[in-house]
């Protein structure tokens, strides 16, 4: 028998099922993908695209907020931090308004005066300026400046 290509039928015998299987696998992957994205969105963004309210926004919508739990952002007012055994209390400013925050739990290591923070909690009443927080988060700025800008190196290598 001659060994030439036209002697043998090399057509694949079971080709059609592959495409169908590929289609179902594609649909399966896309379904898992949609579920994963929806799961992430439900955690992160479906409730609110904004992670926090500013003090101005919170004060302007006091009636709606009531004693509901939400996140509030402002800057820690200098000389008002009082660290307690339960956490810390301080005044927080935003625009020309200020709110007293009484927070429980250990503050982050960067927590200090003049730093922007986000606190999670609620107002004690619909008319009160006191905010009871269960968590303090530090929202550091995008500005980076050397800690000791005037520090110079002496000829012997020591830093002054």
């Amino acid at each position, binding site marked *: *028998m001659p*060994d030439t*290509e036209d*002697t*043998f039928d*090399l057509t694949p015998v079971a080709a059609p099922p*592959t*495409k169908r*299987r*590929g289609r179902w*696998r*594609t649909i*399966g*992957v*896309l379904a*898992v*993908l949609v579920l*994963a*994205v929806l799961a*992430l*969105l439900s*955690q*992160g*963004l479906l409730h609110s*695209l*904004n*992670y*926090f*309210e*500013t003090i101005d926004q919170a004060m302007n919508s006091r009636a709606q907020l009531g004693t509901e739990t939400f996140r509030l*952002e402002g800057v820690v007012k200098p000389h008002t931090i009082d660290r307690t055994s339960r956490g810390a209390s301080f005044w927080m400013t935003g625009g020309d308004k200020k709110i007293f925050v009484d927070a429980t739990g250990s*503050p*982050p*290591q*960067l*927590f*200090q005066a003049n*730093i922007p923070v*986000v606190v999670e909690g609620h107002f004690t009443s619909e008319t009160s300026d006191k905010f009871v927080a269960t*968590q*303090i*988060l*530090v*929202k*550091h*700025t*995008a*500005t*980076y*400046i*050397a*800690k*000791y*800008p005037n*520090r110079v190196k002496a000829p012997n290598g020591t830093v002054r």
Partner: protein
Amino acid sequence: MIKQLSQRLLGPVTLVLLALTFWLGLWVTPPDRVQGNLVRLLYVHPAIAWVALYVSFGTSVIASSLYLWRRTRSVVMDRVASCAMEVSAVFLALTLITGSIWGRPTWGVWWAWDARLTSTAILLVFALGYLALRRANDDPELRARRSAVFAIIAAINVPIDHFSVDWWHTLHQGATVFTENGNFLVHGSMLWTLFLSLFAFTLLFFWLLRARYRLEVQRDARYAASLDEALAQRRREGVH
């Protein structure tokens, strides 16, 4: 000649620049006024995010677009798109990991469901979905076309991720380098080290892409050879 030389030098130059970045970042640059030594993550995290979101995801999307355009359609574009997306997936995971490591001591939490972090996590899911989609199809042409379309659709999330810190209130800080008014918010040697890290990690991407591309070419060649071998085997079976 120049092409060969640049290909040979890509790896060593990348390693030297990465070593220089780490030396400057760990020993030469000063601590930050607020963050202290935590600022040293500035020379790692933004550069990894830069490669993940813009360089590698962008390369994959451009190559996907060129594949879909008939005049530039080729297996090279499909390979570049898939290899770049693989690198992007790795760098997106590293972005989330390094961001989390930086977030714990600064914010006080490992993770926050704000718009920036969530959209980056979604981008990682898209990248993994792209790779899963490629493995779901056996037909090379169909696989290339579907994954190219998917990459372009997934790219909608890149500008959302980028502008999320401007559009919404996020715990993640605003732009450090690409600010709205064009002012740099990083000062002195910290800024130059940041730029160096961006350049070094970009070179690392091209080095990884090249290595991954060569692997893909070898895999395709091996697959073709195994197909030829299978056909030859079948012919032999027919003879005897």
